[in-house]
């Protein structure tokens, strides 16, 4: 099994440049590999699936080519002479060896299908569970309209981390993901690492993923979930194990106390935002919206909607409804100075 493992791994690595070449031909404006493609993958869960998908795609393209050529060639080669306007003038035919060729085609089809079925089952068995022998990290991820909450589970309650939309994982360690649907059905998908699994209310689904090299992998909700289904992305950031540990330790800390000039901003935040958002170490303890204790450590705002820049942060707090219409964060109608104070305070939450 390990040999096969290595083989497919090597095969998909060999395929990757080819795949990237083909894909980038069609995606000229994108400079890097398209972030959501699943024809290039990473990690032990993705490799066998990437090979299978390529394999099935190539079989499909061959079948399409053969049949298109057969139909076109048949129509052109056997066509009755042009200009013969009366269809009755073309004599009727019957008989011929047609059925024998049909049988021939069906046998080939059957063999290819049987092979594909075996391949499918083998891959299914391989990727169903994380590889044995490594102890996985467990993250509980909740999909809700329209962002993702993560809880890094631990036996020690003080080590349970709650964060949103950007999940760091250690390279080389499998990660179990428990999926919860908080309101409607969402679909958890990190194309480069793992296929989809729905987050269904009333049911906890499990999937897993593992990255084999550091990187920033984009994920997205793929089950239609309402107005802002389009803006429900997230990121999985794979770090080397020591970097991951440092990140985890930092994230578990409460927010640093606000400096004197940020006191007003913090008060305003607690007053206007604290019912929904949490900033650990302050009075803001709401749980229906993303935890903002270390919001500045994230690269995007509002579930991948905007890059996390000072300007975007001000724009988002001022006008969430025009940027992401229908989302659950209301327009607060803050005065200019209040807005400045709140966002200045938010920018200290590193």
């Amino acid at each position, binding site marked *: 099994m390990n040999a096969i493992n290595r083989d497919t791994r090597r095969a998909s690595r060999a395929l990757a440049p080819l795949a990237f070449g083909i894909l980038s031909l069609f995606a000229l404006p994108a400079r890097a590999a398209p972030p959501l493609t699943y*024809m290039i993958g990473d990690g032990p869960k993705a490799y066998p699936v990437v090979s299978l998908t390529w394999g099935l795609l190539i079989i499909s393209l061959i079948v399409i080519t053969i049949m298109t050529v057969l139909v076109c060639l048949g129509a052109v080669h056997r066509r009755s002479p042009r200009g013969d306007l009366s269809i009755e003038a073309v004599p009727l035919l019957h008989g*011929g060896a047609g059925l024998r060729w049909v049988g021939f085609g069906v046998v080939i089809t059957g063999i290819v299908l049987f092979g594909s079925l075996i391949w499918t089952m083998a891959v299914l068995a391989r990727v169903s569970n994380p590889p044995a022998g490594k102890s996985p990290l467990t993250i509980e991820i909740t999909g809700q309209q329209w962002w993702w909450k993560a809880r890094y589970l631990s036996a020690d309650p003080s080590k349970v981390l709650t964060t949103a939309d950007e999940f760091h994982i250690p390279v080389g360690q499998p990660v179990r993901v428990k999926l919860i649907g908080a309101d409607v059905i969402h679909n958890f998908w990190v194309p480069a690492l793992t296929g989809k699994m729905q987050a269904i209310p009333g049911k906890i689904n499990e999937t897993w993923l593992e990255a084999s090299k550091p990187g920033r992998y984009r994920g997205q909700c793929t089950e239609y979930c309402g107005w802002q289904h389009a803006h429900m992305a997230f990121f999985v950031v794979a770090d080397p194990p020591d970097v991951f540990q440092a990140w985890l330790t930092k994230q578990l800390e409460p927010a640093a106390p606000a400096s004197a000039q940020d006191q007003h901003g913090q008060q305003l935040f607690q007053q206007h935002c604290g019912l929904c958002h949490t900033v650990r170490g302050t009075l803001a303890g709401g749980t229906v919206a993303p935890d903002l204790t270390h919001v500045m450590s994230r690269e995007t705002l509002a579930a991948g909607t905007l890059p996390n820049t000072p300007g975007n942060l001000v724009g988002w707090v001022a006008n969430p409804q025009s940027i992401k219409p229908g989302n659950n964060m209301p327009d607060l109608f803050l005065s200019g100075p209040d807005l400045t104070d709140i966002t200045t305070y938010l920018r200290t939450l590193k």
Partner: protein
Amino acid sequence: MTFQVERVPHAGTATPSFRQRLEHIWETEPGVAGFFSTVDHKKIGIRYIITAFIFLAAGGIEALILRLQLARPNQNLLAPEQYDQLFSTHGMTMIFLYALPVLSGFSNYLWPLILGARDMAFPRVNALSYWLYVASGIFMYVGFFMGAGPNDGWFNYVPYANRTYNPGLSMDFYSLGMVFLGISTTVGAANFVVTFLRLRAPGMSINRLPVMTWGTLTASAANLLVVPSVSLAFFMLWLDRNFGTHFFDVSKGGQPLLWQHLFWIFGHPWVYALVLPAMGMVSEGLPVFCRRPLVGYSAVVLATLATMTLGFGVWVHHMFATGLPNLAMSFFSGISLIITIPSAVTVFCWTATIWTGRPVITTAFLFFASTIILFVIGGVSGFMTGSVPADWQLNDTYFVVAHIHYVLLGINVFPVCGALYYWFPKMTGRLLDERLGQWNFWTMFVGFNLAFLPMHLTGLLGMPRRIYTYPAGVGWDTLNMITTIGAFILAVGVLLLFINVVTSLIGGALAGANPWDAPTLEWSVPSPPPPYNFAVLPKVASRYPLWESRLQASRGASSVTEGALLDHERETFGVTPLDGEPDIILKMPFDSYAPFVLTVGTTAIFVGLLLHRHLWPLAIVGAVIAAASLLAWLWPERRLGQTVEAAP
């Protein structure tokens, strides 16, 4: 031929005075009265087709607006809620209000003619099925125009469809509308099944049935089995929303997954119901233009039945990402791959028909032959999504959107266009213009492939479906622009079809009875056919009655000019299901307002249920009207009884 019927009918040939007499018995009253009371399958069939094409145009316009929004990244042409209602209404329109009804229209028009009967088994049920279809379509579109169209996609997953997340009337219109439409589909399907078994020309045994009838038969049988599932699901959703039941309500122990099972148990067989009758039309029409009988009639018929049977066992491949056990997924994955085999049989038989024939390249041929290619493309992408691990990636991306469009346009719209070019002369007496037809075909073919072939790649590059906008620079910009351009070219192609229909109706070349030198019974009667279809009921001795002298393929001899003369009121033969031996002379009902009034009553019931908080008495009024019209419908009539007379 030995008749074992109540009376022995006179045999002979039709004289002009006899034809006149039949005309008098069968014709529909002209004007408004006839419009609302007719039960003539030909009129109903054409109405079905026209109505379905109106919905096709509506769904097409919706699609073009969607494509404008998606042409470039970060567009703001549509607000999210507008986009959601448009894509959901587009799906509802094309899948429920166009794709099946247009096939029912062709089958309604053609079945009695191709089977050698004078009407469908239940002509009034036929009228009812049409009126209910129109009424439910209008019902759902009223919601759309009020700003309460469906907004949760055509498969309408809960809990997003529950009242908590979806207040307003959108879901009430959609769920009641679907239950409403389900009645039409069910009564129509029952009519097809009985007609197939009983209303055929003497001698048309089960192995001589025209191949297209098998497609509609299997689709109808499937509909009878699966429509109850979706009607139940939508009814339960409506109860959840309006009366506080908890079928799907998680907080009270309901199950969102239950919806997915109930919907897809219906949904996947339904997709086959949308394509099998159309594949039947290809099997019927393609050989005519290849100047030979279909290669492998029995193989194609068995493949049709096998597809439908296996089609009941694949629904879970829509649910591979819902956390079901591997064993269950492996089973459904296996069937999803195996179901390719019967489709392959059909595709190979069509290809062999081209290779062993002498194709005459008409517009109809082009549409039918292109169906083969489009079917293969739609088929192999279905094969890919049937594989569980691959589907975890492909599912819910534009790859699946491309797949469903290859299936629904490739094996529904394209064969329907072919069928229109093929049978239009029978329906109207005039040929569609061939020159415009070639333009029509090539514009549609190029536009369609330009729009949807690159869309597979959009999916492989990871674009999720049902997003109202997308960011720039993730690799989807160019492909989306190409798709939008293709969609508009496709729309121009469809417009050319409409232009061809209108201009040919006015000034098209006269067709005559059999312009394509085709082999089946509908081509033995004048174009358009008289209200009674056949003056003398034909006798059938082979699969291809009008070709048999040239193919020397039959033991006996078919006869279309000499046969039984049935002229005591509206009469046609009922035959035994397997051998096609006549065993009864059926008295067919006369025109009636009852189906229309029943539909008015039913509509009132549904409007009353929709607005039950304010207008519930309307539902009771509707029920009274419906009961009264049923009573009038079923009231015994002396002239519908069989009169026994001595044998001559």
